């Protein structure tokens, strides 16, 4: 059981982290740097999303990038429709559609004229897709490794479809040349402080909401499912419903991260829902600490931060991925709960040693006792 003091410590750690990320713009005035930091924070949100389903409910979703990419595309579609037409055809058709001989706006693009719908869709589209997949796999009591395989297959398939449907999605190039997102009179440009704050505030909210969720009854049941699915089923809970619920929540959060990512990057691309990003999410989450929201978010921010501060060259990126692969294996082997658990691991060792020391005492006493009585 988690003690009162540990809970306080944990809340304090979360609060300190949030204050730090909210204070960053006071010390960083360089717009380029701020944009970079906003990107890291978006990755933090994305990693947190995976931690919800993987770390807390044991659902290893290797296709998390699907949700991320779809959220990103939703936002990009809305912004594309509002771009001042330069090369567009009649009725404000996006330029790539004109090049692909599409004459009327496809029906699924229509509703993205509205921002309200876009914000809703950015959360709902990933969640609905997750729900459908989840309905099939969790109802069938497919668990463990099969979930991982099926989500990975889903990722590859959806990525192929988006690249293939160039007429509607912009294909390999994705959706580029976007206007600036504007809500309630505030402009969220990629290099603006507003966008950074938006990302940082959302991460803060999600950290505390996630913590509240995981300490609620639902959260406890989810963690119980992670530890022993069958036992929870015998208690009469509908395991599949709980699993599907967190699977959808995780997808929606990743969709939110995707929408933010479009604002930060100013485009949407099929690489956002390709295997390398999905792999990176799992690595961040594993390295930081899958069973801790803060750990997962920090994992993403630290790993991408270190990567971004070192270099951007192609050879470096290849070498970097090699190093990440090795780090990933080392963490999986020796620190299953990530770097955030180092403190616990050391404390656990010390406690074990302390417990081991007094444990020997009664043993000796017991052996000594008859002797002593005999002496008497």
């Amino acid at each position, binding site marked *: 059981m988690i003690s009162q003091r540990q809970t306080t410590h944990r809340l304090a750690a979360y609060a300190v982290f949030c204050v730090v990320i909210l204070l960053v713009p006071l010390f960083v005035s360089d717009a380029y740097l701020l944009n970079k930091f906003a990107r890291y924070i978006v990755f933090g949100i994305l990693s947190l999303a995976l931690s919800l389903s993987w770390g807390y409910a044991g659902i290893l979703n290797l296709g998390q990038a699907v949700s991320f990419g779809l959220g990103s595309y939703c936002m990009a579609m809305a912004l594309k429709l509002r771009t001042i037409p330069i090369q567009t055809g009649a009725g404000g058709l996006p330029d790539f559609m004109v090049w692909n001989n599409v004459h009327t706006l496809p029906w699924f693009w229509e509703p993205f004229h509205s921002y309200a719908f876009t914000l809703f869709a950015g959360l709902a589209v990933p969640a609905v897709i997750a729900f459908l997949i989840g309905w099939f796999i969790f109802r*069938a009591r497919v668990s463990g*490794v*099969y979930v991982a*395989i*099926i989500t990975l297959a889903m990722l*590859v398939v959806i990525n192929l479809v988006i690249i293939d449907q160039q007429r509607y999605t912009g294909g390999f190039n994705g959706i580029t040349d976007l206007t600036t997102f504007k809500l309630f009179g505030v402009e969220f440009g990629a290099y603006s402080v507003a966008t950074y704050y938006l990302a940082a505030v959302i991460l803060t909210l999600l950290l505390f909401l996630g913590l509240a969720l995981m300490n609620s009854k639902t959260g406890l049941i989810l963690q119980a499912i992670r530890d022993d699915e069958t036992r929870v089923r015998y208690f009469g809970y509908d395991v599949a419903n709980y699993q599907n619920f967190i699977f959808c929540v995780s997808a929606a959060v990743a969709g939110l991260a995707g929408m933010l990512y479009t604002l930060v990057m100013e485009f949407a691309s099929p690489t956002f829902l390709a*295997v390398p990003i999905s792999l990176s999410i799992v690595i961040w989450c594993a390295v930081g600490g899958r069973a801790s929201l803060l750990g997962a978010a920090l994992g993403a921010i630290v790993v991408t931060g270190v990567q971004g501060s070192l270099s951007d060259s192609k050879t470096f990126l*290849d070498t970097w991925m090699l190093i990440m692969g090795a780090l990933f294996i080392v963490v999986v082997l020796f620190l299953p709960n990530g770097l955030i658990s180092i403190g616990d691991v050391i404390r656990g060792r010390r406690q074990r040693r302390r417990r081991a020391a007094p444990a020997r005492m009664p043993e000796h006493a017991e052996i000594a006792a008859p002797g002593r009585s005999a002496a008497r």
Partner: protein
Amino acid sequence: MNAIASQISVGLSIASILLLIALGLAIIYGTMGVINLAHGDFVMLGAYSVWFLQKQFGMNLITTLPFVFLIVGGVGWLAERLLIRHLYQRPLDTILATWGIGVILQQAIRLFAGAELRYVKMPQFLINPVHIFGYEDSAYRIFIFALAIALLVATYLLIYRTEFGLRMRAITQNRDVSRCFGINAGRIYALTFAYGAGLAGIAGALVSPLKSVAPDMGTSYVVDAFLVVVLGGVQSLLGTVASSYVIGQADGVLASLSDDTIAKAVVFLGVVVLIRLFPQGLFAMRVRRS
């Protein structure tokens, strides 16, 4: 009629490649409960081995095959000995570790062989079409099909007719009891993993002249192979063979009706729906619990 025959032949060649990849995957999963996400990268490694041997020593594709088997099998053996054997108690983590191995292999190839596409020459005598049953068919396709069948038979004999296979099946049934009878489980695991990896390597070698060789070529193959394993199960070789054939033909037919991508998407959806309908029937849930 001719169109249908050629359609079946295309489907058969897709199925043969899939069979070789899925066979390794299924053997590894069946024996030790490890889902090998590096399997696609073993396929890639096989293709690069052919390219390297061809470029360095001017070897023919067919003469390289034994070497490819040994190289990729050796890498698989190393991976099992160094990493995977530490994770048998944590099945979900073996996915992560093997994914890590895949990344390392892919990046190592990118750094040492370059990221650009590579091309492998087809053996001269297999380029020309041959006439069979009155139809004209690509000789190379028939070669792939024949080799896949040969390896399938070899695998069957290995599992059901040799001492090694006996030990392997014993461990699959009950590892602890088998060890009490003096079977060296670690050695069998390592060799099984190496054999599965070697099969993937051969599959990679076989596709290398058909498509360009690239560091990330493994991903698409391994996803199809996963679907085969999910659909067919790991309990019997027959399940793997049948579902390779079904998925290979479905891929081929759907691709000819629309295009490759739609074919993949439809096959994927089909498999997901089938899982819901036959959760127990089409594959056995054998998550290793220790």
